C-alpha cells in the first residue's frame, strides 16, 4: 500500500471533520439534520474567492506568495471575510426559514425538508452567479516536501491540517470551558428547561449557526485551495459529513473530528484498493455499518 494514502486521507479527513463538527452542533442543538450544511461549505469557498479576487484586483501585492505557501495575503484576508459572510448567510437563512419554522413549531422532518429545499436553492444560486466552471485561488504549483516514510505533503496541505487541528481544539475548549459553551450543551440537553433557567436560547441558536458556518467556510476554503472550487463541492461532501457526524456520535465535537479523519482515511485507502471512481460510496458503506452496529456512534449515548 502506498503510504501517501495516509497523508491524503488525513487531509480530506480534516476537511470532513470540520464540516462534521458543524453538522453535529446544528443537529444536537437545533435538532434537525441540516442538508444545507454542504452549501455553507461551498458558499464559504466562493465568498473567499470573491473577496480575494477583489483584493487581488485592487493591489497585486496581495497576490505575492507568503513564504512557502502558494497564496498571497488576499486568501487569509478572504478567509476571515468568508467566515463572517458565511455566518451572516446562515443567520439570514435561519431568520427567513428555519427560525420561522421553529416558531410555527414545525416537526423535525419539515425542518429537514426545508433544509433540503434551501440546499438546492443555495447551490443553484452559486451556479447562477459563478457558473459551474471550476475556479482556483491560485495558479501556482507547489512542490510536495518529503516528510519521511515515503510520505510527501505540500506546505498548503500541512497548513490546512494545522488550522483544522487548532480549530477543533478551540471549539472543544469553547464548549467545555466557557459560559456560552455550557449554555449550548444545556440547550442540547433540553431546550425548554434551558430557557426556564434563564439561558437565552435565541443567542445560543445564533452562536451555533455562526460556529457551524464559520467552520464550514474554513473547510470549504481548504478544499478549494487543495483541490478546486465548484458549486457542487458541498453536495459531494454532504454524505461524508453525515457519516462522520453519526459515526462520531451526534453532539460530540471530538467524535465528529475523529470520525471525519476515519472517513477521510477510509476513502483514501479505498481509492488505493478499489479505484477512485468508488470513492463516494465509502461514506455510504460507513454510514450503513454504523447504523447496523452502533447507531449511537463512537461517543454517543444510546437513546
Amino acid at each position, binding site marked *: 500500500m502506498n503510504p501517501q494514502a495516509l497523508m491524503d486521507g488525513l487531509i480530506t479527513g480534516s476537511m470532513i471533520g470540520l464540516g462534521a463538527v458543524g453538522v453535529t452542533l446544528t443537529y444536537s442543538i437545533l435538532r434537525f439534520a441540516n442538508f444545507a450544511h454542504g452549501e455553507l461549505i461551498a458558499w464559504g469557498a466562493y465568498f473567499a474567492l470573491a473577496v480575494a479576487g477583489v483584493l487581488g484586483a485592487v493591489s497585486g501585492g496581495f497576490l505575492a506568495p507568503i513564504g512557502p505557501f502558494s497564496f498571497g495575503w488576499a486568501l487569509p484576508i478572504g478567509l476571515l471575510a468568508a467566515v463572517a459572510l458565511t455566518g451572516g448567510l446562515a443567520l439570514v437563512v435561519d431568520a427567513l426559514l428555519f427560525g420561522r419554522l421553529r416558531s410555527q413549531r414545525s416537526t423535525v422532518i419539515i425542518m429537514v425538508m426545508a433544509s433540503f429545499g434551501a440546499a438546492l436553492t443555495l447551490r443553484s444560486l452559486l451556479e447562477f452567479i459563478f457558473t459551474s466552471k471550476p475556479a482556483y485561488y491560485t495558479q501556482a504549483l507547489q512542490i510536495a516536501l518529503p516528510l519521511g516514510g515515503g510520505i510527501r505533503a505540500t506546505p498548503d496541505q500541512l497548513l490546512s491540517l494545522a488550522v483544522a487541528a487548532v480549530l477543533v481544539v478551540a471549539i472543544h475548549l469553547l464548549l467545555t470551558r466557557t459560559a456560552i459553551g455550557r449554555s449550548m450543551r444545556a440547550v442540547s440537553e433540553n431546550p425548554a428547561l434551558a430557557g426556564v433557567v434563564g439561558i437565552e436560547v435565541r443567542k445560543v441558536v445564533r452562536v451555533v449557526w455562526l460556529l457551524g458556518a464559520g467552520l464550514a467556510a474554513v473547510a470549504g476554503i481548504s478544499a478549494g485551495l487543495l483541490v478546486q472550487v465548484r458549486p457542487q463541492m458541498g453536495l459531494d461532501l454532504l454524505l461524508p459529513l453525515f457519516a462522520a457526524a453519526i459515526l462520531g456520535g451526534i453532539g460530540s465535537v471530538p467524535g465528529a473530528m475523529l470520525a471525519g479523519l476515519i472517513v477521510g482515511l477510509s476513502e483514501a485507502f479505498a481509492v488505493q484498493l478499489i479505484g477512485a471512481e468508488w470513492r463516494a*460510496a465509502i461514506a455510504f458503506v460507513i454510514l450503513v455499518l454504523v447504523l447496523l452496529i452502533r447507531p449511537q456512534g463512537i461517543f454517543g449515548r444510546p437513546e
Partner: protein
Amino acid sequence: MSVELVAYAAFFLTMALTYAIMCLGLNVQWGQTGLFNVGVAGFVAIGAYVSALLTTPDTPERFGGFGMPIAVGWLGAALAAGLVSFLIGALTIRLRADYLAIATFGVAVAVQLVALNLEPVTGGPFGIGFIPRPFADLAGNPLAFSLANLALLAAVVVALYLALERLVRSPWGRVLRAIREDEAAARALGKNATKFRLQAFAIGGGIMGLAGAAQAHFIGFIAPDNYVPMLTFQVWAMLIVGGSGNNRGAILGAVLVWGIWAGSAGAFAALFPPGEQARAAALQIVMIGVALCAILLLRPRGILGEERVVSRHLGRLSQLRRAGPQPTDKETSRAGNP
C-alpha cells in the same frame, strides 16, 4: 387543432403522469406515514435500470438484456425498488427520524455511482438505449402512438389511485395515520409501529420503482444524468404543492408542477442568450426552491390538503354532526386548522 399540438399535449401529460406515480409512492411514505425519503431519485433509478435490463434485447458488451415482456420488467422494477426500500427501512426506521432521511440520501448517491461506474451492467455514463416502448408497432403514427401511451399511463395511475385510496381507508391505512399522529397511543393499542412503517416504506419505494420503469420505457433511453437530486426535489415539490396526504393532490401537484417546470424552462431559456443557458437552468431551480420553502412556510398543507377523516364510519358521524343544529363557525375553523 393540429395533430402536432395534440401529440405534444399527450407527450406532456404522459410525462406528468410518470411523475404522478412517483408522487403517489412518496405520498405513501411521507403523506400517510411521515417517513422522509431524500433519495426518491435513487429508487426511481433502480426501477428504471432493472426494467431496462430485463426487457432490452441481449447485448454482447453488457450483462443481460433478457428480452422479457414489458410487463415483467415493470413488475421486476417495482419488486427491486421495494426490496431496497425494505432493507434501508429495516436498517433505519427504528432509529431517529432523520437517520432515514440521511440513509435514503446515501442510497441515491450510491445508486448514481453504481449507474455511472458499473459499466458492464448499467452501460456507465452512456446509459442504456433501445428500451422497448409500449405500442412500438404504432410508432409510424405519432398521434396514435402518443395517445396509446397516454392511455396506458392514465390507466396505471387510475389503478394505483384506486388501490391506494382503498388502502388509506382500510384498517391498515388508519393504523399508519394513528402511528404518525401519536405513536405512543398506537403502540398502547398493540400496533407494532416499526412493522407498519416498514411496510409503508417498502410499498412507497416499490411504486417509485414502477414509476422509473414506466418513464424509462416511455422515453426509451436512460442514463445516470436523469436521476440526480434534482429529480427528488421535483417530486417533493409536486407532492407538497398538491397536498401531502392526499392522493388526488399528489396527481394534481405532479401535473401542475411539471407544467410550471416545462413552461418556465422555455421562459427562462428565452431570457438568456444561448451561451448562458446553464445559468437559466440554475435560476429556474432557485425559483422552484424558493417556492417550495415558501409553501412549507405559508401553506404547509398544499392545494388540496389532507382529508381529515378517512373512516367511512366517522365520515357518517361527521356528516350527521354537520347536519345537526349548532355547527358554529368556531368549530369549523378549528376543524380546518388544528
